[in-house]
């Protein structure tokens, strides 16, 4: 069902966990389809210095959360905003069709986290 890379991120998720004092938090998903993702970011000098995720969801949801955090870490906010769910899926070497639209939402959560940060820091 899932390729090796997806399984690796599922088994050894990068940056899983809660962040204590995040600069921004974003959450997406709903209970009906069964995936809820929360992304925490720490922003310093316009850069995402640290990122964490908490995900309730299927293998694809966990792996894409993990992959997103790898892609984003160290990027500027501008660069990070350009990352799409499709980028995440591609970097994972692809996801099953059925998962592409329901469980591949990590970039959306990231964008919400960045919005959250920006609304908390209107000057930034």
């Amino acid at each position, binding site marked *: 069902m*899932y390729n090796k890379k997806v*399984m690796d991120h*599922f*088994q050894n*998720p990068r940056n*899983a*966990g*809660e962040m204590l004092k995040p600069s921004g938090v974003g*959450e997406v998903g709903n*209970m*009906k*389809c*069964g*995936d*809820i993702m*929360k992304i925490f970011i720490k922003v310093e000098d316009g850069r995402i210095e640290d990122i964490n*995720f*908490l*995900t*309730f*969801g*299927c*293998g*694809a*949801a*966990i792996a894409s959360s993990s992959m997103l955090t790898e892609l984003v870490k160290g990027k500027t906010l501008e660069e990070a905003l350009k990352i799409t769910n499709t980028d995440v899926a591609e970097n994972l070497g692809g996801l099953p069709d*059925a*998962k592409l639209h*329901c*469980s591949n939402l990590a970039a959306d959560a990231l964008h919400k986290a960045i919005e959250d940060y920006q609304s908390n820091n209107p000057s930034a």
Partner: protein
Amino acid sequence: MERIYLDHGATTPPHAEVVEAMLPYYRQYFGNPSSVHSFGREARRALDESREKTALALGAAPEEIIFTSGGTEANNLAIQGVIESLSHKGSHMITSAVEHHAVLDTMNKMSQKGCSLTVLPVDRCGMVDPHELKKAIRDDSVLVSIMTANNEIGTIQPVMELAAICREKGVLFHTDAVQAIGNIPLNLKEVPIDFLSLSAHKLYGPKGIGALFIRKGTKLGKLMFGGGQERKLRPGTENLPAIVGLAKAIEMATADIPGKSKAVAALRDRMIEKLLEKIDAIQLNGHPEHRLPGNVNISVKFVEGESLLLDLDLKGVAASSGSACTSGSLEASHVLMACGMDQQTAHGSLRLTLGHGNTAEEVDYTVATLKDSVERLRGMSSLYRDYRRQVEKKRNIGEEKTCTTKK
């Protein structure tokens, strides 16, 4: 590592004896049972004997057994066949909310085509209430279809009562017994069932073969048209090796059901007890007593079912889930929802179905493994963190209160 198979509800490994019984029909006795010559007659003999064995195992007569390509076809043949055979009688049908899709979707299709349909609710344990059935039967009711035992939560329906109500009211009664045959005793001489579906691969037989019992004298239309096989009800060259396999499997499965079920039920109860003891925030789904001997269905809160399956699989344990992610659809199990479960809990459901090959050691390993998996996944789950925080808060409030009252 030896893998542990705990998905006997999905399919079972064919018994070695079943495969051995089938092989000659792939090799020497390959004839078409409809042929007049000796190759055909050998095949015909095996077909007749298999029908006799299958009938015997069910308490039926050989001419009441029609072989089909599986449980799905048997269900479709019964339901579509009843509608097809009606000319001017009414056409109200009744089923339950927890049926397999092969019944539910067929019923829905018939209702799209003009039949009316009542879907009976179930209680929290997944049980149909016979009184509800009695109330639902109308003058124009023609068929009631309620499964013998549920494939997800293992709940065993009061089929004896349900069938008797239908017989009394003159309504045909079909039961999907795909999960029941071989697991619980059922004698068609004693229960007034008109149609019964079964599938070999759920009882240690081959895939792609099943049967429909049709009580003598019951009229039925058909799904497919063509040759005169299976009393003209099911055309197509008979799948003889599989039919021989089905007969052998059902013969074995129905021998000493009480003895075998007791052994499996003991493993089931051991597993349920340990799971409830070792893992917090889980619940048992289905009926606590009226349940299939091999069925364990739990909801692990704050964890999504598919990820739990994957994690277990990586550790060598094969299970299944009512999670939307494993169903191919985007909805959580209709069975769990019909039992009144909320979405989140349904998504975290896990089905572990035990079979004859499983051992107590496997059960213990599975519980320990499951505990690890749950902990790992809950560690990543925001829902679990929120829950723990609430629990802590409550405890703190509780402690305060205790203190308060102590004053």
